[in-house]
């Protein structure tokens, strides 16, 4: 083995990744080569000194000094991106889920409301709007499609499907904010 290879193995030793076989090879070389032997001894002492290192407490009064400075700071306003997104996603999830519910159950809901004297007038107005809307579609359909109301059915389902998808999308985004709390890589400022 040459000194260059020995040096590579010393680095592996420093990394703690040297294999047993490599350690034996290194040992053989060190026993023959005085330069590498001396170098290895120094490297080993560096490693040893790092291993024996103990944490040093800062001088007395450190905590107090820092806390004093912190209390003297104007209130730091923490704009938490996560919580902003969380609010947005929750609002949209709730909104679309509610819309989906209303759309799906619009007939029974309107029926129920129609029975309430407080709302009956408004509901009846709405009914007439729906009726006109349906009539318009039906009359178009009648021309294209002899009596079979596929377009209307699809249209009605498309809205429900769109609302369901939007609800799912935003609830998924909401879920992600909990699962991956701010996965953005912190680049050096």
């Amino acid at each position: 083995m040459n000194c260059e290879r020995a040096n590579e193995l010393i680095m592996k030793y420093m990394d703690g990744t040297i294999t047993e076989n490599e350690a034996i090879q290194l040992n053989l070389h060190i026993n023959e080569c005085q330069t590498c032997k001396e170098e290895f001894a120094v490297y080993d002492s560096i490693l040893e000194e790092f291993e024996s290192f103990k944490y040093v407490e800062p001088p007395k009064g450190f905590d107090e000094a820092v806390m004093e400075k912190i209390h003297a700071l104007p209130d730091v306003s923490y704009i938490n991106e996560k919580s902003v997104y969380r609010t947005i996603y929750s609002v949209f999830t709730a909104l679309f889920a509610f819309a989906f519910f209303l759309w799906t159950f619009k007939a029974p809901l309107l029926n129920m409301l129609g029975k309430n004297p407080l709302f009956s007038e408004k509901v009846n107005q709405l009914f007439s709007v729906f009726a006109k809307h349906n009539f318009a579609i039906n009359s178009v359909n009648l021309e294209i499609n002899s009596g079979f109301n596929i377009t209307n059915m699809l249209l009605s389902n498309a809205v429900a499907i769109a609302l369901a998808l939007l609800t799912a999308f935003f609830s998924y985004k909401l879920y992600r904010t909990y699962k991956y709390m701010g996965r953005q890589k912190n680049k050096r400022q």
Partner: protein
Amino acid sequence: MQKSDYEIIQEILGGNKDLFSELLSRYKALVFSVVLRMVNNSEEANDLSQEIFIKIYKNLDKYNNEYKFSTWVIRIATNHIIDYRRKKKQDVVSIDELTSEPSFLSTPESEYLKKERKVTLNDALKALPDIYKVPIVLYHQENLSYQEIADITGESLSKIKNRIFRGRKLLKDILIKSKEGEICEL
């Protein structure tokens, strides 16, 4: 039951400033030790450590709990020291200036060691330029991985590896030369 770092951080973010003292008592030795390895005296290290904790406090909302809090703390400390030293342009220091250790570190034992071997690892480290010293301290003292150091310093993995290898060689050279009684300048 003891609160986790994350719970404490959430409470501080919620307005309980005083709880920051808990983070201080948990991490002050870590921060101070890293800083002390990188700067020349304890007074400087004290000031810098205080600044680092203020920075930690101000940026607490940016802490990402995917990392260990200690890693994030080391990141902020390291970047702060690098910036500080860049401003001060203090990379070249002769060994002579370095042999005086911070007084509170001088135990009878370390006094003895100092006489025995004129230059300690700590002194040799201080003579290393930042680009080598930072990764070496983070790797050997803080036991971070190459990848973590690369993340912290924003350098590539291979660059960090090279610098640690080269830094070790420089350290070894300083220590060997100092044994031979030379004054070494980098």
